[in-house]
């Protein structure tokens, strides 16, 4: 090629023009799912991915990102970074991230492969191939990160097994299985839009900022490396959604239904992120409440959804509930985690005076009044708040049924639905609505932990339960009374680091 091609031509030559129509086979057999969801497409080939990334460029950029991450990790370890963080309870949060987020990345790569295979639109297909590889890369650097963490920290020694069997992990699993068993367009709206566009910002940006504040440069590098792909993922979500809305008016009510469902579904899976922002870091640069306001209320509801009004799209059905819940979310979820900390791979912890102070000042209307008394009960006795056994969970999001009604915070928000002569419980009106749209889907819930307790896998409780989870009872419970904390203090002493952070 003599003349240098511009970005647009290069992208067309190297990606878009690689698609062809099959001559030998009926296209409906090649793409059997394309008409199943009622989505009508007229001329989708005019849609473009604003990133216009060609494959050779993609590989080059991604390889650089990986090298950069591993360099930071090596330096962090060589400098005894783990000993130097402000407060190592932070790592209990990173473990929550390990259990909730890494499987999400892995599942997202499967989902992207499924979407790309089943939607024959060039721009979407190429973006999903890239994203499929991105998600696998994220899953891998995160696993590498945990492999290194597990040299110093409990709870991750049998990572694959814990990931597969821990009761808490069904939250992520059920979300992605729900999307994978939906049609390809619904899956696209679920992941590319609701998960990526609306919520991943809250995960990686404030959490990476917290990591920097507590001194975990290793996690900062993981977070940044992962987040560096997110703009592309967001662009896919935006372009796909706009494309579906503009192709045909009849798509609009279908998309609205999916937005209603997947907004709440994604919002619930991010509940643990609220604790990662407000609780686990001893120094917090931003609260969940403020992060939610910025990333969801301002950027999505006030920005994007205003633009979508012209198609007849309104805010997701339970948007208002999530706005109300922001005053309660992290506290309610941290309470759940403390209730169940004796059977979880990431520990709960006692709050310090500076924690009470920060939480009260960020949440003046709710923390002292509704939540501080609960946490104070742990001041003298760390197991004071543990609930025996394994908690009952929501049929849809699979989180324990302990979310307070934001209009009446001393009462739980638990909802009941009847289906085939059985009662199903959900955590909130949002999850109840999702259940009632497709009760046949959610009624199939099989919760491994419950199966375990009912004796399906063994008799010797709780020992067998821990074997099944892949960690020992000493690896669970409260952080400041744990062997991990003791080890961390010893480690610091060896390095001459005797000062402990007190929040002043």
């Amino acid at each position, binding site marked *: 090629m003599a003349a240098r091609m*511009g970005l647009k031509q290069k992208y067309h030559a190297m990606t878009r023009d690689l698609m062809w129509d099959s001559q030998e086979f009926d296209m409906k057999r090649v793409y059997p799912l394309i008409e199943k969801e009622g989505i009508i497409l007229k001329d989708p080939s005019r849609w473009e991915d604003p*990133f216009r990334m060609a494959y050779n460029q993609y590989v080059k950029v991604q390889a650089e990102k990986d090298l950069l991450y591993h360099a930071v990790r090596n330096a962090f370890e060589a400098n005894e970074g783990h000993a130097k963080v402000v407060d190592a309870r932070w790592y209990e949060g990173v473990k929550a991230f390990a259990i909730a987020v890494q499987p999400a990345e892995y599942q997202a790569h499967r989902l992207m492969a499924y979407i790309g295979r089943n939607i024959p639109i060039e721009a979407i297909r190429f973006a999903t191939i890239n994203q499929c590889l991105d998600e696998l890369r994220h899953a891998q650097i995160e696993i590498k990160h945990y492999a290194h963490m597990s040299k110093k920290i409990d709870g991750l020694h049998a990572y694959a097994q814990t990931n597969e069997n821990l009761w808490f992990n069904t939250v992520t699993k059920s979300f992605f299985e729900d999307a994978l068993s939906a049609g390809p367009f619904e899956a696209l709206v679920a992941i590319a839009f609701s998960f990526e566009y609306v919520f991943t910002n809250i995960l990686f*940006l*404030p959490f990476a900022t917290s990591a920097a504040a507590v001194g975990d440069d290793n996690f900062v590098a993981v977070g940044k490396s992962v987040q560096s792909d*997110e703009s592309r993922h967001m662009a896919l979500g935006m372009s796909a959604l706009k494309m579906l809305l503009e192709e045909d008016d009849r798509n609009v009510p279908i998309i609205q239904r999916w937005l209603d469902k997947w907004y709440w579904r994604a919002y619930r899976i991010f509940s643990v992120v609220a604790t990662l922002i407000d609780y686990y870091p001893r120094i917090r640069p931003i609260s969940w409440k403020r992060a939610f306001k910025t990333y969801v209320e301002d*950027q999505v509801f006030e*920005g994007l959804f*205003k*633009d979508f009004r012209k198609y007849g799209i309104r805010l997701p059905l339970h948007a208002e509930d999530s706005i109300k819940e922001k005053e309660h979310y992290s506290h309610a979820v941290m309470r759940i985690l403390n209730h169940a900390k004796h059977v979880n791979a990431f520990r709960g912890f006692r709050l310090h005076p500076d924690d009470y102070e920060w939480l009260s000042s960020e949440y003046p209307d709710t923390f002292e009044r509704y939540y501080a008394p609960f946490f104070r009960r742990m001041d003298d006795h760390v197991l004071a708040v543990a609930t025996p056994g394994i908690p009952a969970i929501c049929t849809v999001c699979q989180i324990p049924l302990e979310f307070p009604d934001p209009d009446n915070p001393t009462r739980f928000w638990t909802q009941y639905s009847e289906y085939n002569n059985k009662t199903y419980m959900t955590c909130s009106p949002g999850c109840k609505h999702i259940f009632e749209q497709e009760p046949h889907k959610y009624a199939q819930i099989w919760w491994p932990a419950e199966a375990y307790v009912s004796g399906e896998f063994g008799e010797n409780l709780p020992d067998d339960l821990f074997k099944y989870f892949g960690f020992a009872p000493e690896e669970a419970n409260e952080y400041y009374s744990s062997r991990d904390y003791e080890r961390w203090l010893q480690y610091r002493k060896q390095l001459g680091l005797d000062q402990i952070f007190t929040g002043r």
Partner: protein
Amino acid sequence: METKAAYVGMDLDTSGGDVVEAIIEAVERDNEGVVVEDFTVYKKVKAPGKLLVRRETVEECLGREWEMDSLQLFMSSYFGFISDWDEDQLIIHWENV
């Protein structure tokens, strides 16, 4: 209450050092009402309704050549629609303004 156009913007990874500083400076020069928020590991740069990044201005601020598509190395996130992104410029905007 007066209704203002919703912001569009980008979250830029501060690992980008002088390049990111130059992008922010260029955005401030080429747009009205720009707000920059510092979150240490990233900076949020936003403008009401529409935000333009021009290669030439970035190069002026940076004092050397710079390619538009390398923006994606540092653009950790954005909000608004990307309506135009070529060798010379990038536009992010909302359509309702």
